[in-house]
């Protein structure tokens, strides 16, 4: 409810001293508000009596823009929803559109998506736990965790060519296969991450400053959390074991053995512990996926292996020198690594009306060029059937759902995102009222508010 200045009341105590409750405005631009959000609190002494949360400062009209660009054009926008784990957003959006179109992706593509999205989940949790710890005074933990996140972002960079705005998934597949040298760097990065997590545990778990502020603050029961629509680690810390990966398995999560950690108290400490354990479980998922994953192409097919730089290939094709490029393999630069023809059967759908051709075909023959043209030119693109679908994946903050309505044109008629931290933010007044002013910091930190997905 909105808080009016005039509602502050003056009380005269028996001792003859008058007290007055006070309005405290935190944000929108405040270092502890992780982005921009405004909390207006009415205080009685140090206790919070009433809270109003104002959001929308980062509203960019994601849903409106998605109605005006083609299906693949939305993917860069999804990067900017939860910008700490963009790969999960990419995956959720692409799987929703795939459900709408009724197309399937190869098995290896599922594994690749799961691996990268679990790496993203770890980096998201690292950021959340690190930032919360920093705001409670543990700056060292923040630096250690950002160091670990750096190792993981290097992996993301190896796969996608970018660190933050990755745009890696495509409707019907991924941009390119994992690089050849990926499993070993990934294991090495996990080793470092585990070391960092151990150090962070040592620094935090029995640290009085940290535990006293985390224990018993920001409590919410599982029933209340469900009523507010809270999902993800926040709900699991309250004792409900709902996890989209377990309960509505998608991609290949039903084939992988992992545990869902749950808490009992539903306070900030439980949420910290759940996130710490989830990072370990995510690493377990990635390691299991490496074991199960069907192999990609071992080598470029020797018959088509003559490498030609893509720019040169285009020039040759323009001159009509088809003989020179027949059977050639385009070298498309580091950012398009893993998207050559040899990788296609393992990472892209066989529905040609929905997926861009390999670069060799786009540059080297007219059929490939036309396929590329029809998919990327305005007014062409993928034309889905009429329909509406809802599909959810487990985002780093909880259930990340997409609801897409199609009227058969080249772009969606309506795209709706169910942002997981929207539900948690709507419960924030419930979480904060009754606690002290200083408890806003750990409670708000454990919400892991991400402005991009909250305000869209």
């Amino acid at each position, binding site marked *: 409810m*909105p808080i009016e200045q005039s509602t502050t009341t003056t009380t005269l105590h028996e001792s003859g001293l008058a007290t007055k409750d006070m309005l405290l405005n935190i944000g929108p631009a405040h270092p502890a508000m992780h982005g921009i959000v405004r909390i207006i609190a009415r205080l009685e002494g140090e206790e919070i009596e009433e809270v109003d949360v104002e959001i929308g400062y980062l509203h960019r009209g994601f849903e409106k823009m998605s109605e005006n660009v083609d299906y693949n054009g939305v993917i860069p926008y999804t990067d900017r929803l939860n910008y700490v784990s963009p790969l999960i957003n990419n995956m959720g959006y692409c799987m929703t559109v795939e459900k709408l179109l009724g197309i399937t992706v190869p098995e290896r593509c599922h594994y690749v998506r799961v691996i990268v999205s679990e790496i993203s989940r770890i980096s998201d949790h690292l950021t959340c736990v690190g930032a919360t710890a920093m705001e409670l005074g543990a700056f060292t933990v923040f630096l250690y965790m950002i160091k670990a996140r750096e190792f993981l972002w290097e992996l993301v960079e190896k796969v996608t060519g970018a660190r933050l705005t990755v745009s890696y998934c495509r409707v019907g597949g991924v941009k390119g296969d994992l690089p050849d040298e990926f499993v070993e760097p990934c294991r090495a990065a996990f080793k470092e991450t585990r070391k960092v997590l151990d150090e962070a545990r040592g620094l935090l778990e029995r640290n009085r400053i940290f535990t006293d502020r985390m224990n018993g603050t920001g409590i919410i029961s599982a029933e209340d959390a469900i009523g507010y*629509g809270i999902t993800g680690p926040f709900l699991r810390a309250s004792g409900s074991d709902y996890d989209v990966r377990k309960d509505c398995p998608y991609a290949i999560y039903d084939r992988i053995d992992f545990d869902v950690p749950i808490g009992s108290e539903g306070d900030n400490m439980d949420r910290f512990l759940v996130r710490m354990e989830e990072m370990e479980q995510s690493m377990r998922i990635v390691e299991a996926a490496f074991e199960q994953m069907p192999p990609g192409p071992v080598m470029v097919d020797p018959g088509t292996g003559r490498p030609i730089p893509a720019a040169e290939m285009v020039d040759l094709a323009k001159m009509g020198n088809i003989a020179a490029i027949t059977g050639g393999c385009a070298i498309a630069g580091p950012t398009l690594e893993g998207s050559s023809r040899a990788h296609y059967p393992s990472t892209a759908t066989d529905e040609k009306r929905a997926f861009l051709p390999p670069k060799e075909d786009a540059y080297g023959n007219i059929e490939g060029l036309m396929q590329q043209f029809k998919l990327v030119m305005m*007014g062409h693109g993928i034309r889905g059937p*009429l*329909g509406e679908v809802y599909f959810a994946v487990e985002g780093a903050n909880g259930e990340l759902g997409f609801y897409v*309505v199609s009227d058969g044109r080249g772009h969606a008629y309506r795209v709706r995102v169910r942002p997981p931290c929207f539900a948690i933010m709507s419960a924030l007044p419930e979480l904060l009222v009754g606690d002290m002013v200083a408890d806003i910091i750990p409670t708000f930190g454990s919400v892991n508010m991400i402005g991009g997905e909250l305000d869209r």
Partner: protein
Amino acid sequence: MTTLIERVASRFPDAVASSHAWRGDETVVLRREGLIEAARFVKEDPDLAMNFLMDLSAVDYSAFGKGPAPAFFSSSGVAVRPTPNIPDEDPWPGPPSSERFAVVYHFFSTTHKHRLRFVVPVGEDEPEVDSLVTLWPGANWLEREVWDLFGIRFKGHPDLRRILMYEEFEGHPLRKDYPVNKRQPLIGPVN
């Protein structure tokens, strides 16, 4: 084993207008008078036990299927045909009704792990449906968002304010007649 649609339809034969399960998403189109009763039923009935209101949004169907014809690449004088539609054997029955808006609810049950969608058509003249805040407190912000972006009011909502846009904003941006490139002056601090 009866489907979720059958359970809702047999309990509320008057309120259910139609239903479908396209792509496996079980959907019930409800008349708005029956919404709150049906929502209470799916929440409290032990066979449905929809304890989560996962999502609440709306769709403006006023421009459905009325978009401009696919563009043609004509500079070479040769019209390139657009990609044919990806075929679909079991087609979707189409927009829920001739009304302009549809409010869309997604429910989920943690006990049975099933999902159900309610679609409530709302006319342009009187865009109002009952609020579900009394059943799920999480509906509060979601309904505020639908009011903000679509201009659909919720009867019985305790605090129907704008949430993503600012109070002085004119219009409802996710309506199809709101131009995507329209600009409005930014409002500074009020006091």
